[in-house]
């Protein structure tokens, strides 16, 4: 198990009802974190155009996560 701090933004924050939480998760990749937190909060948002960052660096979903990491889950962006 790894202690992972997960931060939620925009619609993800509203689905979760909080902006951040630290969880003990059995995860290997950023994708694992997305899937486990999605089922935890009952969100149905498809991964589609969602993005992820680990420790303030944009990464691929297949990137490894380590104990103590902060994972930022971004719903589809809408700048401009």
């Amino acid at each position, binding site marked *: 198990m790894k202690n992972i701090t997960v931060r939620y*933004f*925009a*619609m993800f924050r509203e689905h979760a009802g909080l902006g951040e939480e630290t969880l003990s998760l059995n995860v290997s990749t950023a994708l694992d974190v997305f899937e486990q937190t999605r089922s935890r909060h009952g969100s149905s948002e*498809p991964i*589609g*155009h969602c*993005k992820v*960052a680990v420790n*303030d660096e*944009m990464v691929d979903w297949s990137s490894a996560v380590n104990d103590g990491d902060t994972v*930022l889950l*971004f*719903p*589809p*962006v*809408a*700048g*401009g």
Partner: protein
Amino acid sequence: MFAISDEEIPVGDLRKGLTDSGAGGLCVFEGWVRNENDGRAVNRLEYEVYEPLAIQEGTKVLEEAKQKFPFLRASCVHRSGLLEIGDCAVWVGVVAPHREEAFKACRYIIDQIKNRLPIWKKEHYADGDSDWVNCERCANVNAQSGAGN
């Protein structure tokens, strides 16, 4: 220079800041808040921005644009917070010796800013409802037609 601002974008100052004696022209794109989307009347918009990564990624976009379409100077500022109809939500300015690079770089910058930066838009409708803009659909439309605001 790329920045996020929670106040009105100082368009005049940004324009002056791009002055360059080698410049043959300035190409500007301003994104404005409009009063409807998909047939629904919109009263105002709210932008949520994750600033550390928005600034990092926005700066990267300007550097990429300069590599692709060599220009002299460029600036881009995106708003955060609550905006009213007609407000300027994003400003892009590029100066170059000739219009070709200025137009192309400006287009590249606004397209990348819309698709890559951690910025989210919530529309507040005239009927009292509000919703996050579904940009999976926006991204698909933009890819096909270059549409958007």
